[in-house]
Each structure stands twice: as C-alpha cells, then as structure tokens.
C-alpha cells in the first residue's frame, strides 16, 4: 500500500503518545497504590469499595462506642465494688452492735460510725462517670440523684436506662438507675441504715427496749442482706455486659480485618504486576522511539547530490 509521509509521522507519534499515556497511568497507580483511580476504571469495584468503606466506618464507630461503654461499666463496677465493701463492713458493725454487753454509749459510738458509712454510701450512689455525668441518675445525668432526708435518701433521678449502640443489632445499657440498685425489690439501703442508726442511738433501759433492739437488729440484718443481694445482682449484670463487650470486640476486630482485606482486594494495586508492566511498556516505548527515528531518517533526498 502507498503510504503518505504524513501517515508515517502520524502513526509514529500516536503510538508513542498512547504508550506514554499508559505509562503515566501506571505511574499514577503505583504512586497511589490504587488500582481504581476513578470510578470509570472499575465502576462495580468503585461502588463496592464505597460499601465496604461505610461498613468499615460503622464497624469502627461501634468499636469506639464499646470503648465508651466499657469505660462507663468499668467505673460502675468499681463503684459497686466499694458499695459491696461498705455494706459488708456495715454488716460486721451490726454483729458487734448485737453484743449484749455493750452499753448505750458504746452503741452510740457505733451509730456515729454508721452515720459516716451512710454518708459515704450516699456519696458512692452520687458518683459521676468519666464525662462528669451522674452514673445512677437515669437520664437526669446533671442532677445529683440522691439527697439525704430524715428517713434515708430521696431519689431525684428517673427510670431512664441509657443505651449505647455497641454492635449493629445490639444496644447495651451502660448505666443502672439508682432507685433499682439501692432502693429496688422492696429494700432501701438508705432507710435500713438510717433506721439502724436511730435504733443504736435509742437507749435501752427496759427489757422491752432490749427486745426491740434485738428485733430491730434482725430487721436491719435482713435489710442489709437484701441490699447486698441487689448490689451483687447488679454487679453480676455489669460483669456479664463487660464480658459481652469483650466478645463483641473480638468479632469487631475480625470483621475489621475482613473489611480491610476485601477493600484491599477491590481497590489496591498488584505491585508485582504493575512493576512488570512498567518495564514491559518501557521496552516497547524504547523500541517504538528507536524505530520511529530509524524510519523517519530514511529519505531519498539524502541520496540526491
């Protein structure tokens, strides 16, 4: 076929420029580490990558939520642990108060000691979490939940149970309300302790008074045992929530790994392949440039003298 001089130049240039643009694209892929530079490179992969990124982002947010839940529940657990110790110490005080050899004055000392314990207990029930919110106040996190009154303590919080989304389909309570922990199930630890203090402060000159003291101590013992049960039940729930959070963390981490892997398979570059393509392209480009120069330098005019 007859070929025009223009075509010879045009073909050479367009092939070289094709090769150069392929090289530039490879270079861009290598420098970004991404196989998909724009959605047009792989429309299905690009939208799939978006889905995975969202799933990964949501998953990482659940992990952050779990950290917050763990922090709250951890503080609750340690607070309740102090409450447990306090109740146990009140119980041992009660045992000493039952000693018939004690005088009214000596029981009065015990009452004063218990008064301190009651204040300490109210203090614990009014604990705040790491963010400065009252832990046992339900939704009323800015209101001190327990106020001391003559018959014990009044609950000013509400029954709201604060939930946190700790996994796609799991909302977990991260706080328990003070009325259920300290005043639930027919017991009221503040009233029990206030009654006990009043009892120990009351002198026992007559046998009837002594009988009333004994009966009062039995009632107080039952009350404190119920209070201890309530606190221990709550601690058991908190403990099992913490366990569940650990399990969810393990799942969450493995899911995250899986997402990262799928995302990488979807959009990341196969470096070995890309680099071998670069050197292949380079060979072709060099050959194309050399042959272009060789072909275009051939001219009959060179031989006309």
């Amino acid at each position, binding site marked *: *076929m*007859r*070929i*025009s*001089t*223009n*075509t010879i130049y*045009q*073909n050479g240039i*367009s092939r070289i420029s094709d090769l150069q643009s392929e090289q530039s694209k490879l270079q861009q892929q290598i420098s970004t580490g991404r196989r998909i*530079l*724009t*959605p*047009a*490179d*792989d*429309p*299905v992969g*690009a*939208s*799939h*990558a*978006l*889905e995975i*990124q*969202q799933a990964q*982002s*949501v998953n990482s*947010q*659940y992990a*952050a*939520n779990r950290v*917050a*839940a763990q922090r709250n529940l951890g503080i609750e657990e340690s607070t309740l642990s102090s409450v447990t110790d306090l109740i146990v110490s009140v119980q041992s005080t009660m045992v000493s108060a039952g000693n018939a050899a004690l005088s009214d004055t000596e029981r009065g000392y015990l009452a004063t000691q218990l008064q301190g314990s009651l204040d300490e207990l109210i203090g614990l029930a009014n604990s705040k979490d790491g*963010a400065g*919110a009252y832990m046992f*106040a*339900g*939704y*009323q*996190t*800015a*209101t001190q939940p327990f106020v001391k009154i003559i018959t014990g303590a009044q609950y000013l*919080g*509400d029954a*709201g149970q*604060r*939930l*946190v*989304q700790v996994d*796609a389909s799991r*909302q977990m309570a*991260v*706080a328990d309300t003070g009325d259920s922990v300290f005043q639930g199930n027919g017991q009221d630890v503040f009233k029990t302790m206030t009654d006990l203090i009043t009892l120990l402060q009351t002198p026992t000159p007559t046998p009837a008074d002594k009988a009333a003291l004994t009966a009062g101590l039995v009632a107080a013992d039952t009350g404190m045992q119920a209070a201890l049960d309530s606190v221990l039940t709550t601690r058991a729930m908190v403990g099992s929530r913490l366990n569940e959070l650990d399990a969810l963390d393990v799942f969450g981490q493995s899911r995250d790994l899986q997402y990262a892997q799928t995302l990488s398979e979807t*959009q990341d570059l196969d470096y070995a392949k890309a680099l071998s393509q670069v050197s292949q392209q380079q060979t072709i480009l060099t050959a194309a440039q050399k042959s272009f120069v060789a072909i275009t330098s051939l*001219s*009959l*005019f060179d031989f*006309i003298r």
Partner: protein
Amino acid sequence: MASNILSIGQSALAAAQVEINVTGHNIANVSTPGYSRQVAIQSSAQAQNFGYGYVGQGTQITAIQRVYSDLLAVQVTNAQTNSNELNTYATQMTQIDNLLADSSAGLAPAIQDFFKSIQAASTNPGDSASRQSVLSTAQALASRFQGMGELLDQIGQDVNSQLTSSVYLVNSYAQQIAKLNDAIEIAQSINGNPPNDLMDQRDQVISDLSKQIKATVVQDGGKYNVFIGNGLPLVVGTQTYPLSMANSPTDAGRLEVSYLNNNGKPTILGSSSLSGGTIGGLLQFREKSLDNIQSQLGLLGVAISATFNQQHQLGVDSAGNAGGQFFTVAAPSVTASTNNTGTATTTVAISNVSALTGSNYRLKFDGTNYTITRLDNGTAQTFPSLPQTLDGLDFSITAGAVAGDSFLIKPTAQGATSFSVAINNVSKIALGGTPSSGPGDNRNALLLAGLQTTSTMLGSTTSYEGAYGQLVSMVGNKTNELQVMGKAETEMLSQAVASQQSVSGVNLDEEATNLLRYQQAYQAAGKVMQIASQMFDVLLHLGG
C-alpha cells in the same frame, strides 16, 4: 524539419518544467492540512500528416489534477464527526468521574463522619463538645454537598459557553464554504480547469465543520450544498443559514442552539436534530448525563434532609422542646415555559421521599388533559385533572392553563447546592426521646444514628450511601463506556485518515523519484534541442 525538432524539444522542456513545478508544489505542501497531492496529466501533441505518415509534434500538459476520492473523504468526515461527538461526551463525563474519584474527598466520608459524630454524641448526649461535633460534621457534609453541586452547575455553564463557541465556528465555516463555492465557480468558469487548491481548502473546511456537527454535503455542479442535523440547510450555493444561541424557554440559565426560520424567529433545535461532533456530544452529555447526575445527587440531599428532619422533629432538644428542622433544602423547582400563553401556575411538592426517582418531569396541557412526562426514561401519563400524585410528588395547577402550555419540573436538581444546616445552637439538637427527661436521654440519638444504615431511599431499597454508590457506579459505567467507544471511534478515524492519505497524501520519497525523473526528462529535452541546433549548423555549413 529542424525547426519542428526544436519545437518538439521545447514542448518536452516545457512539460518537464510544469511537472517539476507540480512536484515542487507537492513537496512544499507535504504537511499542509487537507492538501491532496497533484499530478500533471501529460499527453502527446496532435501528430501531423506528412503524406508518408503522422509525425508526432511533441507533448503537452492537458491538466493538473488533485488525487482525491469523494468516498474516502466522506468516510473521514463521518469518522471525524462520530469520534468528536463521543470524545466530547467522554471528556465531559471524565470531569464528573474525577470529581467522584477520590474516595477520601467524595461525599461518602462526609456522610460517615456525620453519623459517627451522632453515634459519639449518643454515648454522651449531655456533653456540649459532643453536640458541637455533630454540628461541625453536619456543616462539613453541607459544604461537601454544596461544593459538588456547584461544580456540576459550573460544568453546565461550561457546556453553555462551549456550545456558543462551537456555533460561532459552525457559522464561520458556513461563510467560508459559501465564499469558496463562489471562488471555485468563478475559477472553473474561466477555462474549465479545476482550482485544486481552492477545492482542497473547501474540503478541509467541511472536515473542520464535521468536527463541530454532523454535516452532509450534496454537490451541485461545482458548488457544495451543506446540510446539518435532520436536513437543515447550512449552506446552499453562496447563501448561508446561520445558527444562533437562545435561552431555553423553560430552563433559566441554559442556552440552546437555535435556527432562524423563514419568519426570522428563532426555533430551538433539540438534541435529536443536532447530532454528531462537539455540539452533538455536548447536547447528549447535558441531556442524558449531567441533568441526571445533578438530580440524583440532589435526591440524596433531599432524602437525607427529609428523613433526618422527620426523626429529628420526633426528638427533644436540651431545653425539652420538640426538635425542629435540622437540614434545609430547596423545594422542587417549577418553571413555566416562556412560550406559555395561559396564566396558570403549577406547584409541585414532595409527599413521599422514598418514592422519589431523581428524574425531572415535564407537565403539558393540551386543552383537555394534562400529560406528565418523566424525562429520564420518557414515560408519560395523562390525567384529565390535577392534582395528582406521581413518584412521590404532588402535582397541582391553578386555573388559567391554555392548550400548549408546559412546565419543567426539577424536583431535586437543587438538592445539593441548597443543602444547608438549619440550626446553629448545640442545644437545639434533639437527642432526647421525651420532654423533660434529662440530659442523659439519648433515645433519639440512637434512632438518628440508625438512619445511616436504614433503607430510606429509592422505594425503601437502599440507604444513603447505597444510593450514592449507585450514582458513582452509574457515572463510572457511563464514563468507561464512552472512553472505550471513543477509543474505537478514534481508531476508526485514524484508519479512515490513513486510507484517505494513502490516496491523496504526499510521499516525499515518491516526489524525490519524480523530481529525478522530470529532471532527466528536462535534460533529455534540452539535448533534443541541442541536436536540432547542430542539425541546423550542418545545413548552414553546406552553403559555406
């Protein structure tokens, strides 16, 4: 006798000179665009009968012709117009493709960050820092929406200005063709010889014209009559019929290509009557892709705003008041055609976000019935009266419509550019579930956060990010398809050009050969004349 030889030699000398000229002209124009190589057509001169036989009288140049094939030229212009149409469309789409390319700068991370901040606030609803982060990420989401919407608007403006300059080129080519028609006719009428270079110039203008729009050439003697689109005359003989730009009657800010009809009134030409070339590609892009992408992105803004607001309004803010609007977006835009003669106004309101399609609509009144056409797929529904509900939209019209009146409805086209945050006070964020429940109440925060993964869009089939993913995939697919087709058309074009060039193009080696050949012919002719002179000398010496 000797004088005859002298004149034979002279004719050969003259012919070789012309041929060397033609060869030189070819060499000089080797890289002139549109140049067709020329050849001198040589024939022997009329022989003379001397009784004993016809004695040749030398040679003559009968014509100088260009080597040109109409068929190959038409193939080139067709390939030119197709490849320019597809590559223009592809270039425009690539802009949007690039806009969506960066997964860290697109819309997806802004949506994710916003919902992350709501999740974080749900773990600490009373904390004003957490609430502030909700507002800040909402602002970031709004500015991402606005930024993307504005870029798409900008691309629409660019289409306007590119169309304007293309139409300017088309008109200027039309005038050049008309002038060349005139010049070629005059040149041809002098002695019937073809004015090769003028003809090349005209064919080159046709080729340039076909880059802008599909053009059909009908030869009328020496003149070209040029038609564009569906047989609209652009050039007839020496008369041109220019195109112009006009404002769209229904779409403010949009320019359309129009044509002055016999009454001198501009008539708007749709994309169906303007195919091929840059103009065809731009119109296709605007009609089939840009409008759609703008509305789909807007739909996402409208859906996030409506569904988030709905849940937000069910909640309670820090002061114990019911939540208000969190986001705002523009209501559906309705524009009456400037050609309407009636006084009716149309109102369109969104009644069901999940049923929205993201398409634009045209409402037309024919005197008795109202036809609502969905513009992205062309489905039309006719109603005897309004109001009617269609695709989650309530269409209503006031009295006073006249037959032929039409309205363009873009329900979500401004959903991205107008997307903004309605509240600026952290205490107005309604994270609580019931009034006066306290700062720890996060019930509505949990419900708001859950919207991220709920299927609220496109007939409750997909989430916000799912809908965005569909948009990205749609843009990617279309861009990819256009790039592949554009490459194929470019390949076709270069093949058509190569075969056209194989006939008409100049080959320098061939010209070098010709140069040698005609140089030798010239030298030989000179020798003939020298011999004639020597023969004359012989006669003169006889006398001496």
